């Protein structure tokens, strides 16, 4: 028999293999088309804007475009001593144009991010500039304010010359590029961002630990109790889960205030004196307590769904083979719950590290986290490129954990109640 005849044909004469492949391909396209609307929607309204943030965080063309003549003249300047007359002339011409266009305020804001004190001397320059005579701009500008004769300010100006820069990222980890182009740390007393990063990770870590310690026993109880009791207790876990975050934070604000119930209780059992009630809100304690309670359901649910699948006979077998209940638990039960522990801990950690509302309301100054700092720069200082840079640094951390989570647990295994 030849190989030709061995091929199985479909009724219309096409080899079955080919026909099957065709059908498979058709199914693939069909499945993909179903996902397409949502995927496109998310790419346009979500993935692309996050990419835009990345662009914004390195984009520094605004200052570059505002001072073209200055930066042209600065190309020749080595930055060691005060720049030559051409730079001053270029700066004068650029700034005059900005004043005419009434956009000099933006420049002042931008330069003030780079070095404090720029705003006032730019304003003063604007006032005095009207009486400037032609020629010898160096002398005239330096006469306006002593800071214009300070080479540091000109160096700061030069640092903003490139159209794209990663300086916002350096600022986010308390570093900067000094005059020699080396990356160095800012002076000790100004390292505010490092403190924030450490605190954010610390809070997220301890909240995860507290959540785990509290969730493990109750998830175990829920998984081992008979259905009719466990359903009732499950409500206790799910009700906070479904309740508004702001409502839960508000209730903690009431409980933890100085005249609040928790303090009343401490006074009543004699732990603290009535006139010496501890401050439990607007500091780290408040953040820890409220965040633990709010994130606890996210730990209980994955643990519960894993524990539910562990057969109770395994523990009995462990005991019947001579293990004490503790040994049986530690050697048999606990290892089986590790997938649930991993899922719960990663989920809580991811959620905790980007928390905003609760720390902003109960955290006070010592309990604020990186998210609050991003919001501060978005809303108060309006340094959006710095906010974007900080946001992306946080995002890269979260995505790294998300990647691990996806590898270990798989996103399609997230359980919601």
């Amino acid at each position: 028999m030849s190989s030709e005849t061995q091929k199985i044909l479909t009724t219309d004469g096409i080899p079955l293999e080919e026909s099957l492949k065709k059908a498979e391909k058709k199914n693939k396209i069909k499945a993909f088309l179903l996902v397409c609307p949502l995927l496109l929607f998310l790419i346009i309204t979500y993935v692309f804007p996050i990419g835009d943030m990345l662009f914004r965080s390195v984009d520094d063309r605004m200052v570059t475009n505002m001072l073209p003549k200055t930066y042209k003249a600065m190309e020749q300047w080595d930055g060691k001593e005060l720049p030559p007359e051409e730079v001053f002339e270029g700066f004068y011409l650029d700034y005059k144009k900005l004043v005419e266009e009434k956009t000099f305020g933006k420049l002042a804001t931008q330069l003030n991010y780079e070095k404090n004190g720029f705003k006032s001397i730019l304003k003063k320059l604007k006032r005095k500039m009207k009486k400037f005579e032609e020629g010898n701009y160096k002398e005239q500008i330096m006469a306006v304010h002593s800071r214009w004769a300070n080479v540091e300010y000109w160096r700061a100006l030069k640092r903003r010359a490139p159209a794209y820069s990663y300086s916002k990222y350096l600022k986010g980890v308390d570093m900067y590029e000094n005059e020699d182009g080396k990356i160095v740390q800012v002076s000790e007393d100004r390292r505010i961002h490092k403190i924030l990063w450490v605190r954010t990770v610390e809070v997220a870590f301890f909240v995860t630990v507290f959540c785990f310690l509290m969730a493990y026993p109750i998830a175990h109880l829920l998984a081992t109790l008979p259905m009719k009791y466990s359903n009732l207790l499950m409500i206790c876990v799910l009700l906070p889960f479904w309740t508004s975050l702001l409502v839960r934070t508000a209730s903690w604000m009431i409980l933890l205030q100085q005249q609040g119930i928790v303090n009343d209780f401490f006074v009543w059992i004699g732990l603290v004196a009535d006139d010496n009630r501890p401050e439990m809100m607007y500091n780290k304690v408040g953040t820890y307590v409220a965040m633990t309670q709010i994130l606890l359901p996210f730990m209980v649910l994955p643990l519960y769904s894993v524990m539910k699948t562990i057969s109770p006979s395994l523990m009995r077998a462990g005991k019947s083979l001579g293990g004490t209940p503790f040994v049986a638990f530690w050697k048999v039960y606990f290892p089986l719950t590790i997938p649930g522990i991993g899922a719960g801990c990663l989920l809580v950690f991811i959620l905790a590290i980007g928390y905003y509302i609760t720390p902003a309301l109960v955290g006070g100054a010592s309990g604020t986290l990186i998210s609050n700092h991003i919001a501060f720069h978005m809303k108060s200082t309006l340094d959006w490129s710095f906010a974007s840079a900080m946001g992306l640094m946080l995002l890269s951390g979260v995505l790294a954990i998300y990647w691990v989570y996806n590898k270990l647990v798989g996103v399609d295994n997230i359980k919601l109640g």
Partner: protein
Amino acid sequence: MALPKYTEPHYRIWHYFYIFICSCVFFFLIAPLFVIFPLSFNAEEFLVFSEGMKRLDPDAFSLRWYHDMVYGTKNPWGLAAKNSFIIAIFATLGSVLLGTVAALGLSSRHMPYKGIIMATLISPMIVPLIISGVAIFFFMAKVGLAATHTGIVLAHIVLGTPFVVITVTATLSGFDHSVTRAAASLGSDPVNTFMKITLPLILPGVISGGLFAFVTSFDEVVVVLFLAGLDNTTIPIQMWTGLREQLSPTILAVATCLIVLSTLILVTAELLRRRSERIRGINR
């Protein structure tokens, strides 16, 4: 959980200790919600239990904060509630529509690049809200939808779809595909099959995903803080402002209403979950 008779004393002690610990944790979870109820009926302006309330004196309780919530001149709760409901309803419809269709594609075993696409679709749930807020704000400002209802609805669809995708794919994971094949072999076209066979079977999952999307939108503050103008104020925004500036008992009245609402949603979701498991023949 009765202990067997032969349990040794120290295990017995350990067992009661364990029950005690569990009770404490449950108390910690649920008690904070209940402190709001009585205080919202406080006749006084302070957020502590007055002497009268401790004595259960009827004069110490009143409905004045509920009255203030509804009729108060300076409280824009009416506008906020209206906005919240409009935004949440449209966001839910959008999320359910996009999420369900996508989940149907994702549950197909022919779906290419399943892992990476699933991870992308779920990401709005994982990415810190502040980052989503900043990114979406930049986008909406660029296309001119900042401070509009449309912009907020679109943002909430982004945040709500992961929940729909998760619940619907979970429902579809136990789905018996031979029923749709049976329908097809009996001459039904795919749309008819979906409407008559698939949808009724996955409906509990779709609705519970919709409830998640609704709650997400209804409770969302961070993104709205960036997007909302004065006309788009929502209940969470009003609460946020109130909590930051001055905690007034009116907020507690609103909070009590929200707790009642979430209890209703929880009961609905639980009933749906059980129904879904019964339909799919999962016995737990």
